């Protein structure tokens, strides 16, 4: 059984290296959740996802999503743009 866990541990070390090189290791679980939701929603709207969409699809509270979006924006991972159709609405766009 020890050997089994050692093998799994080696696989996790390999995945950890991949995560490190993908540069997503500094994100907290909440930030990751919001980040994945933005990626998933970007499939449906190339001009950016609105915040209500992200709140609805992430399953997190509006205030947590707002705080997390601010953090991601300050880290340069995302950009918050004002919607051309509705000036009160912000659209979240991934920075390339």
């Amino acid at each position: 059984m020890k050997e089994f866990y050692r093998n799994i541990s080696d696989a996790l070390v390999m995945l950890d290296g991949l995560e490190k090189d993908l540069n997503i290791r500094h994100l907290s679980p909440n930030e990751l959740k919001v980040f994945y939701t933005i990626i998933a929603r970007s499939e449906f709207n190339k001009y950016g996802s609105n915040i209500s969409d992200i709140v609805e699809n992430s399953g997190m509270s509006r205030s947590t999503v707002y705080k997390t979006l601010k953090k991601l924006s300050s880290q340069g991972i995302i950009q918050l743009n004002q919607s051309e159709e509705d000036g009160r609405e912000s659209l979240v766009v991934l920075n390339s």
Partner: protein
Amino acid sequence: MKNFLTLSVTSFVFSTVLWVLWHFIDTHVLFLAGKGGFFYLPHAARVLCVIYFGFKAIPALYLGELVGPYVIDPDMYSFSTLLPSLISVMSVPFALTMLNSLGFTLGETRSSPLNRRNYKHIFLITFISAGFNALVVNLYMSRNNLSFPNAITDIEQVYRFFVGDLLGTVFVFIFLAMILIPVLRQAKN
């Protein structure tokens, strides 16, 4: 014996779950439906299980390969997949044996020519095994006049197999890295 049973169950479940997931995406997810050949997720199970559990994982992986087309969706293929599935499972041992014979033995330290803790080395094994799988399975199908529904066994299918195994494995690795590592880190804290 206990280790063999554990790794066999793990390999079988992992392979079957990836096949079911792949089949679901290929048949139900609108914009990806019918394009499953370009992201064959179960190749990741072959690569991970053979590399980390050794050749002992082969019987369980083979069984996992057969469950999909024989139990879950028996109408999927119009020909027997007994031999093609075996070739596919054996593609990873083939890649490892080939690299081993060239002096690139698989180890777990930085000094090992092939380090199983380094994802770049794992991608090299994935690349060779995907090539072997694409060539040999399609050679077998071509010589026996077999083809998938709505597809012709030709060079395009070899390309699809190759790209599909590579992309499928990359998707699973990235998914596991994104999901498992943060969860484990959170559990640790």
